[in-house]
């Protein structure tokens, strides 16, 4: 088997990573854009989504699809409610001051992560996918009888992985619709543009902030639920999504949603491709250095623009 099928496999795996990453990063980007809060605990909301998915699926029982469906609705709602509570009790009291909230969300990170360790334990636990058919992918190859399709061993994907990609696209469209078409979205964008003017116009900014923080955390949790049938739930699983979402949000331009989605696809695919051909550690080193240098030399991100 030559290079082509490997590349195809890397792209398929990368697309799943990109889909999940886009959800997580859009959550982080929303919170940063509207509230100017850098949420270091964002990866822990992702982890909580996955862990709660295991817990809910465990409680529901019956066919795997029922448990998963319940988790898909229940886990993001629970995590969103928890995040709103954290915003109202902690971040609001810090008046959302950027530097102090970073320290507070670092604290929140350890509180959530270590509580998960105490309650859920240090084991990685799987959740069964609702459906999981293997789909082999054909590959054209030039043989003695001219071009023909072959099915290289190992090249393929599963119906669940395709469903994750479709679901992520659907959810992102829904988020966009909420932002662009609903009253809540309008209020959110108004708060993002000018917090004081929004207050002057009678927008309940505190409530908008709480809802935004909840929505951002809910998106991360949703990504966690979607990934858990592929990658087991573990209390330390929040670190990688946090790092990657940071990279995505910074490359895509802080607070810009289309830039974030584009960067997620870019980073997800390159991460998949580099990890297949080189060491994953090297991929991460290059990515972190890249993001640090982008911040130093292009502080608005690669796709960011100066505000008028």
């Amino acid at each position, binding site marked *: 088997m030559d290079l082509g099928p490997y590349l195809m496999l890397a792209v398929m795996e990368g697309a799943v990573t990109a889909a999940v990453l886009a959800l997580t990063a859009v959550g982080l980007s929303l919170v940063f854009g509207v509230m100017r809060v850098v949420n270091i605990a964002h990866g822990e909301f992702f982890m909580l989504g996955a862990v709660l998915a295991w817990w809910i699926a465990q409680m529901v029982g019956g066919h795997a699809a029922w448990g998963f469906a319940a988790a898909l609705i229940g886990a993001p709602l629970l995590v969103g409610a928890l995040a709103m509570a954290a915003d109202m009790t902690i971040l609001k009291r810090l008046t959302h001051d950027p530097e102090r909230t970073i320290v507070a969300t670092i604290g929140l990170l350890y509180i959530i992560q270590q509580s998960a360790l105490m309650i859920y334990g240090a084991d990685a636990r799987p959740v069964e996918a609702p459906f999981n058919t293997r789909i082999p992918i054909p590959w054209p190859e030039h043989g003695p009888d001219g071009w023909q399709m072959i099915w290289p061993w190992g090249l393929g994907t599963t119906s669940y992985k395709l469903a994750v990609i479709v679901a992520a696209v659907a959810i992102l469209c829904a988020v966009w619709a909420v932002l662009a078409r609903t009253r809540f979205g309008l209020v959110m964008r108004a708060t993002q543009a000018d917090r004081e003017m929004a207050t002057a116009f009678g927008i309940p900014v505190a409530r908008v902030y709480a809802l935004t923080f909840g929505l951002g955390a809910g998106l991360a949790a949703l990504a966690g639920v979607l990934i858990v049938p592929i990658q087991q739930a573990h209390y330390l699983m929040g670190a990688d999504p946090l790092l990657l979402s940071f990279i995505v949000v910074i490359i895509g331009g802080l607070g810009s949603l289309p830039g974030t989605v584009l960067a997620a696809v870019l980073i997800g695919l390159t991460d998949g491709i580099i990890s297949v051909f080189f060491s994953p550690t090297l991929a991460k080193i290059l990515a972190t250095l890249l993001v*640090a240098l982008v911040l130093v030399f292009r502080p608005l991100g690669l796709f960011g623009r100066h505000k008028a």
Partner: protein
Amino acid sequence: MRVVALHMGLLALLLGLHFVLPAYHQGNIARVMVLASFAMGYNILFGYTGLLSLGHALFFAAGMYGTGLAVQHLAWGAGPALVGGIAAGAVVSGALAFLALRTSGVAFMIVTLMFAQAGALALLYFSEWTGGDEGFVLPQGGRLLLGLDLSDANIRYLAAFALFATCLMMCLWLVRTPFGRVLIAIRENEERVRMLGYDPFAHKFAAMVISGTMAAAAGAAYGVLFGYVGSSFAEVQNSILPLLYVLLGGAGTVLGPFIGTLFMFYLIDLSSDITTAHMLIAGVALVGLTLFAPQGIMGEVRRRLWKGLP
């Protein structure tokens, strides 16, 4: 004068404790003194200059690995290896300062965090030399300094004390020089400092190099005194801990880092009997401090009792 008396009093007390403490607590206090030196280095940048770095684990690790690798692979003695580790810390902090100081505020935090993360990953990547996440134990030969065996509990305590005393006196002297005053002025209002004709970048650069070098000295000493070099010291957690120590003890006070380290060290030590999730305490402390006591312990003392405390 009272100020000097207070700090010398603490040093005398710590030296005296050497003769009365039981072995277990003697080991703990030696560790606290090294970590407090790390925190004091952190405090110069965060407490006095007002720059919140999330990457000081990189400097600590530069000192630790600079020393450890020289001992392990070049068979250097502890003396030259320590100097090499501290020099490595100065170079790394200088390079990072050059890049990261082009940003400010939240971007500065993320840039330092990202570079430190890249450093920690690089230690894993070059595991052939660094031993990866298992690290390596320093050979006995690398722990002899001027004929003194640093692995001996008594000498270890005194060596940690020497490091701590040097860092404490340097801090006390530094923040009372005109240079230190400019750093505090930068923390309060950088634009005005520029208007007064000082160069903020040069001062911040110097503060970051001093801060990083002190952190590296603590890292180098930690490796030699406790005989182990590992990549866990380069991880994010080790950048958060000095922040926590300084916040708890009081940012921008000379004694704060020591008080914070002492308090936190024993809190975690006691809690590890109850639960393995000891970072939970750190998390609760961080949130509680930002909410209720952003000044920290010594900050409150300064506010209520002693206005002129440095």
